[in-house]
C-alpha cells in the first residue's frame, strides 16, 4: 500500500472515525484504525467497537492499493503532531508502515487488514432517504429524554418507525416521552420499527453533513447512515418499544399558552433552590394554573422558597400539580420558538408540551410529580 494524503484532512477524518474506537478494546484489531486505498484515488478510514462503526472516505494520491490496521492510540497522536504537509505513507516488508513528511520519517507496526470486520456497508431490507438537517433535528429533539439506565435497554434507544408515510422518532426515559417525525421520505417499505442506541444517533447527528441527503439502510440488527463520504453504522437494540400512541392523551381539560422564555427563566431560578436534592432527585416545582396566571412555587426546606407569577392564556379548567423542574428545563431548552402550549388533564396524568403555530412537529410528554 502506498499513498499520499494531506495531514490536515487525514487528521480531521481520523478524529471522526476515532469516535467509534475504544483504545482499551481487548481485540487488537478493534483498538486499531483501518485504512484502505483503492485505485480510484480514495482512502477509506474505518473504526468500530462493533456497536458503532464509522467510515470516512477522503481523496488521496494512491500509488498502490492495500488495506492495513494501525493502532489508533499511536497513529492518531502522531498524525496530530505532524506538520501540515503532504504525508507519504507506504508499507514495508516487516509489517511496518513508513510515514514520510519532508525529509523525516516515522515507522509504525501494523496489522493485516484482511481480518478486519466488514460491518461498515450493507444493503438494508428497509432503505430510506431523508434530508440531513431533518435527521439532525429529529435526533436532537429525541435525545433529551433518553435513559442511561442499562437495566431497561429499550429506553436507552430511540424508536425509528415508518408508519403512515412518516418516519417517526420516539424516545422515553420512562418519566418523559418525545415524539417527532419527518415527512416526505423516500422509502421502500410501508412499515418498519427499529430501536437505535441513542449514543449512536448522537454521533450520527454530530458527524453527518446537514446539507446532504442521507441514505438509511436497516436490517434486523444493524442500521447504516450513508452520506457522500461518511458512513455510520450501529447495532440495534432488541426489544419492543412501549406503545407510545396509547400513552399520549388526545383530549385535555386544561390547555395553556405561555411564553417559553418566561417559564424557562422561572424554572431555572427555582432549580437553583432544589438542585441539591441529591437523593430524591425530584426538584419539585408546583404549578398552580389560574385563569390568567401560572403561579410557580418551589420549596427546599434547607435553602428557601420561590414564588413567581407568569401570565398565561388558559382554556379549560384551573389545575394544580407538581413537576420535576429539571425535566422541564431540559425539554424547554431544546425547543425553538417563542410560545409553547402545555396541555393537562389531572395532577396524576401526563402533560403534553407542544410548540404553537408552525412549530408543531414534535410533542413532549411529561409525567407529574405526585405531591404527598
Amino acid at each position, binding site marked *: 500500500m502506498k499513498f499520499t494524503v494531506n495531514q490536515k484532512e487525514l487528521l480531521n477524518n481520523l478524529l471522526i472515525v476515532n469516535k467509534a474506537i475504544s483504545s482499551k478494546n481487548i481485540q487488537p484489531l478493534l483498538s486499531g484504525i483501518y485504512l484502505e486505498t483503492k485505485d480510484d484515488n480514495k482512502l477509506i478510514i474505518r473504526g468500530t467497537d462493533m456497536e458503532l462503526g464509522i467510515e470516512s472516505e477522503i481523496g488521496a494520491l494512491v500509488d498502490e492499493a492495500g488495506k492495513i490496521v494501525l493502532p489508533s492510540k499511536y497513529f492518531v497522536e502522531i498524525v496530530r503532531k505532524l506538520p501540515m504537509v503532504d504525508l507519504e505513507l507506504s508499507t514495508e516488508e516487516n509489517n511496518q508502515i513508513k510515514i514520510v513528511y519532508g525529509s523525516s520519517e516515522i515507522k509504525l507496526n501494523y496489522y493485516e487488514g484482511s481480518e478486519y470486520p466488514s460491518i461498515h456497508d450493507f444493503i438494508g431490507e428497509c432503505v430510506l432517504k431523508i434530508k440531513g438537517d431533518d435527521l439532525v433535528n429529529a435526533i436532537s429533539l429525541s435525545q433529551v429524554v433518553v435513559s442511561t439506565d442499562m437495566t*431497561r435497554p429499550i429506553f436507552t434507544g430511540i424508536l425509528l418507525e415508518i408508519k403512515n408515510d412518516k418516519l417517526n422518532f420516539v424516545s*422515553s426515559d*420512562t*418519566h418523559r*416521552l418525545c415524539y417527532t417525525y419527518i415527512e416526505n421520505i423516500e422509502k421502500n417499505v410501508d412499515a418498519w420499527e427499529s430501536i437505535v442506541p441513542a449514543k449512536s444517533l448522537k454521533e450520527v447527528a454530530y458527524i453527518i453533513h446537514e446539507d446532504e441527503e442521507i441514505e438509511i439502510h436497516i436490517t434486523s440488527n444493524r442500521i447504516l447512515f450513508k452520506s457522500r463520504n461518511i458512513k455510520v453504522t450501529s447495532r440495534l437494540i432488541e426489544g419492543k418499544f*412501549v406503545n407510545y400512541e396509547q*400513552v399520549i392523551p388526545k383530549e385535555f381539560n386544561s390547555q395553556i399558552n405561555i411564553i417559553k422564555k418566561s417559564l424557562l427563566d422561572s424554572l431555572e431560578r427555582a432549580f437553583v433552590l432544589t438542585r441539591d436534592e441529591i*437523593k*430524591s*432527585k*425530584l426538584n*419539585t416545582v408546583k404549578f398552580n394554573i389560574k385563569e390568567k396566571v401560572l403561579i410557580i412555587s418551589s420549596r427546599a426546606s434547607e435553602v428557601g422558597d420561590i414564588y413567581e407569577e407568569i401570565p398565561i392564556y388558559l382554556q379549560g379548567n384551573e389545575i394544580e400539580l*407538581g413537576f*420535576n423542574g429539571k425535566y422541564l428545563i431540559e425539554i424547554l431548552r431544546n425547543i425553538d420558538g417563542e410560545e409553547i402550549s402545555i396541555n393537562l388533564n389531572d395532577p*396524576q396524568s*401526563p402533560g403534553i408540551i407542544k410548540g404553537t403555530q408552525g412549530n408543531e412537529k414534535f410533542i413532549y410528554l411529561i*409525567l*407529574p*410529580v*405526585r*405531591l*404527598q
Partner: protein
Amino acid sequence: MKRAILHCDMNNFYATVEVKMNPELEGKPVVVGGSKRERHGIVLAKSYEAKKFGVRTGETLNDAISKCPELIVVPPHFDEYLLISNEAREIYNSFTDKVESYGIDECWLDISGTEGLFGSPYEVGMLIKEKIKEEIGVTVSVGVSFNKIFAKLCSDLAGRDEIREVWEEDFRKIIWPLPVGCLLGVGYATRKKLAWYGIKTIGDLAKVGEDFMRSKFGKNGWYLYVYANGYDVSRVAGFGERAPVKSVGHGTTLVADVVDEEIVYGVMLELSLDVGYRMAKLGVRARGVELTIRDSSLAFFSFQCRLDFPSSCPSVLANAGRSLFRAKYAWAFPVRAITIRGIDLVSEVVSGVQLDLIGVVDNMDRFNRIGGVLSDVRDRFGRGSLSYGVLLSDNKVPEGRRLDTVMPSGIIR
C-alpha cells in the same frame, strides 16, 4: 472544664448473666454458644473458668469441648442480656445524661463537671463499678480518661472488677509503649500494615506524623494519628441520641445445607419479614438490597443491586435477593448461611413521587401498602401472625430465632 470520660465494660457479660440466671453454674466452665444441633456452633462468650482451659471466643464448640471436656454449653438468651444491659444503663444514667452504648455490654459516659456532685472521675468510676456489682451482680472494668479512645483503652487494660485511669499529663508514659493493636480502630490488617512500616507501638504511630498516616492509610489513618496523640474530641452521644441507621439486615445459618433455590428464597423471605418490619419501625425504605451467602465451604459471597423503587416490603427485598442469587450465585457448593440487608436507606416520608410510564410507581404503591399492613398486623398480633403462604412449609430457618441486637460497627466517630 476538663473532660472526663468513663468507659464501662461488663466482664464476660453473656456468661455472667447465664450464671446469674442459673446459679448452679457458678464456678464451672461455661460457654454461651449457638445450639449444636442447629449448627450455630461457635463460642459467643465464656466464663473465667472456661477461659482457664484456653477456650476462646469465636472458636467452634467442638474445639472448645476438646480443650475442656466438662465444658457446659448454654444457648444464648439475648432478651435477658438486653434486660440486664438496660438495668446497667439506668445506673449510668443516674450519673450523667451522656451515655453512649457501644454494643450490649459497653458504654461511654461523659462525666465532665460532676466533681462537685460525686467526686473525682476516679471516684465516680469506683462508685459506678461498685453500684453495678451490688445491684446487678455483674463486675465491670472501668477506664477513665480525657477522651473516649483512651477511656476504652483503659478499660481494656483494667482487669476484672478493676479501674484504670490515664490523663493528659501521663498518657505518653502509660499508653505510648503499648502495642498499636490496643488502639481502637487498629484491626488485624491495619496492624500488619503498620508493622510493615515499623510502627509497633501507639507511641510510634503518634510520632510518625499526620501526613504520613493520611497518605498511607487515608482518612482512617488520620483518625488513628488523632487517637494516638490524644487529640480525639468526639462526643459521647447524649440521652436518646442515636447514630443514623445506614442499613438494616438479618442473617441466619440454615439448619441444613441447602441446594434448592426455592428454599433459599423462603429463607430470604423469612429474613425479609424481620428486615422489613424493622425498616418500617425506623420509618425508612431501602433503595438497594445486599445479599450475603456463605456456602458449605465457608466461602463468602456478597452481591448488591438497586431496587426499582424505595421499599421496605419483605417480598420486594426477597425478590431482589432472589434475582441477585440467580444472576450471581454459581452453586459451587450448597448454601449454608444467608444474610439479606436493605441498603441505601431513605425516609419513607417523601415530598413527592415522580410518576412514570411503565408502572413502577403503581408497583411501589401496591407493595408498600402490603409492607405497611404486614407491619401493622405484627404490631397488633405479634411476630408470625401474618406471613407469606410460601413460608408455611419447612424452610430451614432455626426455630426461635431472636431479633438481633444492634452491634457496634466500625470505628467510632
